[in-house]
């Protein structure tokens, strides 16, 4: 396993090291002083658990670490560790994530702030490991907060944010960070690693308060309420998800003050949008090839930019509407599929359209499904996405032009 080759003091609060996205997550686990984590091998998540196992063996992390017998047990173990007040971490990928689905679904219902990563991977028939977002997206309606990382740095930063936001009493919901399998999980980048003291200033100790399951605090977790109270419980989840917007905004501001990172908005990352007519919209590592394409297109005089979504849940409707209303056309690039959905578009495409529906001034929105199964989104594909979006902006959009699959071999 790759280890940091060089440590450079960049300030009093952080040092710079070379590491993969998975190792950056492991660093966050160390900094957050996680109490319990559960492992079960599946690519690409396994690299996180190996890096964490090494930290424990090297005496750098004091954490109960259990290799579960499968993903379902993995998620059950941390859920209950969380109920008794432990800060926890867990993760999986693709079909492994789906095997844990029963536990995943009830974790949100129980309002237990488990922090997980989903190393995004195709839902194979055995054999496909490349990135696709449908594994994470499958939980989109259940009450999990879903941020998506672009860089190894963001893996670490979002993980620290995840504990802070998820464990906040106003939220108390689980968080699953999306990491594009391969592109992000296994490629090395320079990462600024906060010191422990600086992390402590950002991330308070986990305190479940009067919801702590303890002999001195006899309460019932997951009471049998039958149908009588279920609707009220669901409504509480809804309220918590609404409050999460402000809690994320607060956490982002504090993080930026301490570490000087995170951009202007907690929810969106904009690139060359100031004078743009057309923007790409997407999440995860997709931003990297799109930024290259933008620089090339701009050299030819095209006014194009990128808006990257950092939190898919809660969906930052106001911010998205405010941002995208400025442009003539938006090309939403989905690294996922949603068969049979409106206009046969991807998940993100339909969310963005729905968010903008009530606006009088709204851009033309074109949907693209690209890069499935980890297929690289190359420059010719990015150009095709641009051309189709720009054409829609000027020529009107026929029903058949709403959504396109890019880079499919016929």
């Amino acid at each position, binding site marked *: *396993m790759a280890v940091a080759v060089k440590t450079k003091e960049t300030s009093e609060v952080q040092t710079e090291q070379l590491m993969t996205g998975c190792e950056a997550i492991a660093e966050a686990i160390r900094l957050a002083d996680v109490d319990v984590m559960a*492992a079960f091998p599946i690519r690409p998540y*396994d*690299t996180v658990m190996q890096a964490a*196992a090494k930290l*424990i063996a090297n005496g750098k992390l004091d954490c109960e670490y259990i290799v579960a017998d*499968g993903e379902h047990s993995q998620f059950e173990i941390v859920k209950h560790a969380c109920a008794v007040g432990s800060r926890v971490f867990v993760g999986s990928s693709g079909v*492994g994530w789906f095997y844990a689905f029963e536990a995943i679904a009830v974790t949100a219902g129980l309002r237990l702030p488990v922090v997980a990563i989903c190393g995004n991977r195709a839902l194979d028939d*055995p054999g496909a490991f490349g990135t696709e977002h449908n594994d994470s997206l499958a939980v989109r309606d259940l009450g999990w907060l879903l941020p998506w990382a672009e860089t190894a740095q963001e893996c670490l930063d979002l993980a620290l944010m995840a504990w802070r936001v998820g464990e906040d009493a106003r939220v108390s919901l689980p968080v699953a960070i999306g990491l594009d399998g391969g592109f992000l999980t296994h490629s090395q980048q320079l990462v600024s690693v906060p010191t422990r003291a600086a992390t402590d200033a950002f991330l308070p100790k986990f305190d479940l308060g009067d919801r702590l399951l303890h002999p001195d605090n006899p309460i019932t977790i997951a009471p049998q309420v039958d149908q009588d109270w279920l609707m009220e419980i669901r409504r509480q989840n809804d309220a918590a998800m609404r409050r999460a917007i402000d809690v994320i905004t607060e956490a982002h501001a504090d993080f930026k003050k301490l570490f000087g990172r995170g951009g202007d908005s907690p929810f969106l990352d904009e690139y060359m949008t100031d004078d743009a007519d057309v923007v790409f919209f997407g999440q995860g590592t997709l931003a990297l090839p799109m930024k290259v394409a933008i620089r090339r297109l701009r050299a030819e005089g095209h006014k194009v930019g990128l808006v990257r979504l950092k939190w898919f849940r809660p969906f930052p409707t106001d911010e998205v509407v405010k941002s995208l209303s400025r442009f003539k056309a938006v090309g939403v690039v989905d690294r996922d599929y949603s068969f049979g959905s409106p206009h046969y578009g991807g998940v993100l495409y339909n969310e963005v359209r729905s968010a903008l529906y009530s606006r009088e001034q709204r851009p033309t929105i074109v949907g693209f499904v690209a890069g499935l199964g980890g297929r690289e989104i190359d420059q010719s594909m990015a150009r095709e996405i641009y051309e189709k979006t720009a054409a829609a902006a000027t020529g009107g959009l026929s029903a058949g032009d709403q959504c396109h699959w890019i880079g499919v071999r016929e």
Partner: protein
Amino acid sequence: MTGIEYRDRLRRQMLPHILCPGCGHGIVLKALLRAARSLELDWDRTVFVAGIGCSSRLVGYIDGCTLHTTHGRALTFATGMKLARPELTVIVITGDGDGLAIGGNHLIHAARRDVDLTCLLLNNETYGMTGGQAAPTAEPGAISTTTPGGARERSFDACALAVAAGASFVARGATSLPLELDGLIARGIAHRGFSFLEIASDCPEYFGRYNQLGRGPEMLQLQRRRLDEVDRTLRAKRSLGSRRAEGPPPLRTGVLHERPA
């Protein structure tokens, strides 16, 4: 059985295979092909079913009726197949992680029902395909990517488990005794009822490397030493965390349990 043309039974378009040099699993594949030949199995009525992992990969190379299923579930696919088509000979290939961790529940219930299947569980104490994590058969003290300080938990005795769960034929073979293995696999397939075979295999790439046990040949020699140790009751004396200090645990091969189904 001599004179077998393995190539006639292998999917040549799948070669070269993905197994690492010195991996024990190839020895098991050859033994299985020899056993199938010795029984003169009707190739069109024999199905090889596997889950996920390096061992489960073997079915991809057999030029016959094969099914590569999801992680841990090979026995459920096989059970369904056998119920629907009882005339088929159904052989399951699984590993320690696939068959004893994520699929452990299916194993005990297949044994309890005593379904007429043959299950080969290749035990190399590790999840090879994902990079060498500790499997539930990893002996205490074993080094892996999830146990860099040595495994702390007790390991499964897969054969004892299968007997307790109700399997009517239970045997253990080893890759260092390939001819005995041929016979054990053939007896397992011929047996009516649930036949469980644990086969000691080796993962030189991860388990061997992390535990400094050498490459394939050295690991086979080590297996032989474990077979010789069998009469000494080392296993009983070993305590948690002391595996490497006391030497490898003894290994007993042969048919361990057999009763009419």
